[in-house]
């Protein structure tokens, strides 16, 4: 419908182009080389979930991974975290191969994963103690983090006493406290209501702007991906392979009003076409709507 919109690439201002060029010259933090993932199916055949995924993430980059459902984006980020192993291929973090989960790759999940038996402060301390910080140091750092995310008052609360948005804020603080190289986020705002989600997006950008962290962010929400990211990795489904790497033509810092600007809409439109599955003939269902309201004048 928006065929009047020009190609998103031509809408990029020189400043943004320059910024992205500088971004790609920064050191590579994480990269994947020819990543494959196969799952055995019940019929004995192998289903290829991820096919030949290779990409690089640069220092302080915000990279989103987006794709239709079933394209394996969650599997991909779980492989990056080390929670699942790839069938073949390699993941390098600072040039060293990744084999198991570790504190240098923090992760925020869609489900609320704060430990319900620990208070908010002790939750943030968990990762710090895991990497060998003593209790007092861990507590001090945790309290600083709670201050940063604005939840210092809730240090002694249990997660069950907080709202969903607050819990995800604590989860972000918990992942960031041990100073990971990369923050992996698997649809972290998926379970939140629309209003809280917008708040959380702005809030995440604010945190990201102020600390040295690289973020890989999985989402199925187009607006979210375009609004947050420097670059977007669009995947195809069946098998999941890289469709296109999109450079977002929006300047930083991002503002909510950018959601209405042509650059945003053109990019969104472009990705929407990319990831929307082509409609097959047999998938098209025909609706037969029968007017059951007696009063025709109402229509």
């Amino acid at each position, binding site marked *: 419908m928006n065929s009047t919109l020009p190609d998103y690439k031509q809408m990029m201002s020189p400043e943004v182009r320059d910024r992205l060029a500088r971004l790609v010259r920064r050191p590579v933090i994480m990269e994947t080389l020819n990543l494959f993932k196969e799952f055995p199916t019940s019929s004995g055949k192998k289903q290829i979930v991820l096919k030949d995924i290779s990409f690089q993430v640069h220092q302080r980059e915000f990279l989103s991974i987006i794709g239709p459902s079933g394209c394996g984006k969650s599997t991909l980020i779980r492989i990056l*975290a*080390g*929670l699942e192993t790839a069938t073949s291929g390699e993941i390098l973090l600072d040039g060293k191969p990744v084999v*198991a*989960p*570790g*504190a*240098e*790759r*923090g*992760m925020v*999940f869609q*489900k609320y*994963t704060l*430990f*319900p*038996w*620990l208070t908010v402060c002790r939750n943030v301390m*968990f*990762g710090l103690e*895991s*990497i060998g910080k003593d209790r007092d140091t861990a507590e001090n750092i945790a309290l600083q983090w709670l201050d940063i995310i604005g939840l210092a*008052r809730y240090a002694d609360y*249990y*997660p*069950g*006493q907080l709202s969903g948005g607050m819990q995800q804020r604590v*989860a972000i603080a*918990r*992942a960031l406290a*041990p100073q990971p190289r990369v923050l*992996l986020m698997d649809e972290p705002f998926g379970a939140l209501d629309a209003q809280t989600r917008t708040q959380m997006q702005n809030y995440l950008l604010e945190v990201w702007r102020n600390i040295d962290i690289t973020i890989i962010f999985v989402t199925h929400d187009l607006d979210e991906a375009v609004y947050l990211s420097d670059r977007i990795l669009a995947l195809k489904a069946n098998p999941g392979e890289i469709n296109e790497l999109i450079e977002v033509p929006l300047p930083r810092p991002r503002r909510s009003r950018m959601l209405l600007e042509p650059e945003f809409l053109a990019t969104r439109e472009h990705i929407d076409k990319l990831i929307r599955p082509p409609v097959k003939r047999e998938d098209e269902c025909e609706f037969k709507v029968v007017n059951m309201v007696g009063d025709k004048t109402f229509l």
Partner: protein
Amino acid sequence: MMKMQNVGCFAIRKKLTRRQEYILLFLSFALPLLLWCLVSYVPFLYHPLIRVTDAGDSFLCAPGDLIERSAFEEENRELASGGGKVMRGERANPAYLPAPHQVARSLVTAFLTPPRRDGEAWFHESIGHSIRIVFLGFLISSLFGVPLGILCGTFPFFERLIEPFIEFFRYFPAPVFATLCVAILGINDAPKIAIIFIGTFFQQLPMVANTTRSADGALIEAAQTLGASRRRILMKVIIPSVLPRLYKDMRILLGWAWTYLIVAEVVGTSSGISWFINQQAKYRDFSNVYAAIIIICCIGLFCDMFLAWFGRQIFPWESKHKGIFYRAAEEIFGPRDQVFSIVLSKEERRKRDEQHSA
């Protein structure tokens, strides 16, 4: 328009008022008691026997005997035809159905009556012995069952190694080991504890393993991405996350241990509360039997109620309120002005907490 139907107390899954809950709680005990009272105190409702008050000229009966009504009438017919003095009696319930007041009296007198023979245990000694057997059996079983169960629930290696055999062994009823236990362990308390151990352990291990397996995988993954070691994940994530459920399992298993007690106590030399019950039944003192049964129920119930309350205190994140241990720790280790605030009212404490967090 359909009118909303007023179904009162019988609405599906609708919470009753506090008042209704208490009334129903009272009734759930009062109704069976009322039934018992009716059967015991209202003549002609049940009372199938005759208690002889005056034996007359009968050679067969003595005062105090309980006999069938038909036998009583026949005997009297014979006495009358022989010209003798007829028996007199009143309708009575069988000996195994004592009246509530008799049982209530026995609840006290059972403790005060010395044993009929020297060397036999007093009632409270019997109870003490039973409790000791149950808790020892349960404790030993838990010492092995809980760690092994957690291990099986955490590592598939141990699950495959240990659980198949336990699952198989679980179907042996514990009483079949009675003779074996006596042969190996002698006739005193050891075989009894062994029976309770066998009855509990083989249920406990799969139960604990299952509960451990129900630990939320997402929490374990979160801990992994935070760089926690395997040991730390086991001790600080898996165990705490299933602890409230394990605690509930233990409460259920303790109930089972009690049921095995009755089997255990007749093994070897009879002892404890079931010995007391058997002994009293032999003396045909059934009010004591019922008293003992009621006391077992009360011990079980109060034990469970205490454990339920205790559970709410040690797992404060399960309910919304802080447990007393958390509060006590706050009182002891908290800032100076918090000490002794237990004497403050709820309102005062709330104010103080607000000031503190502000």
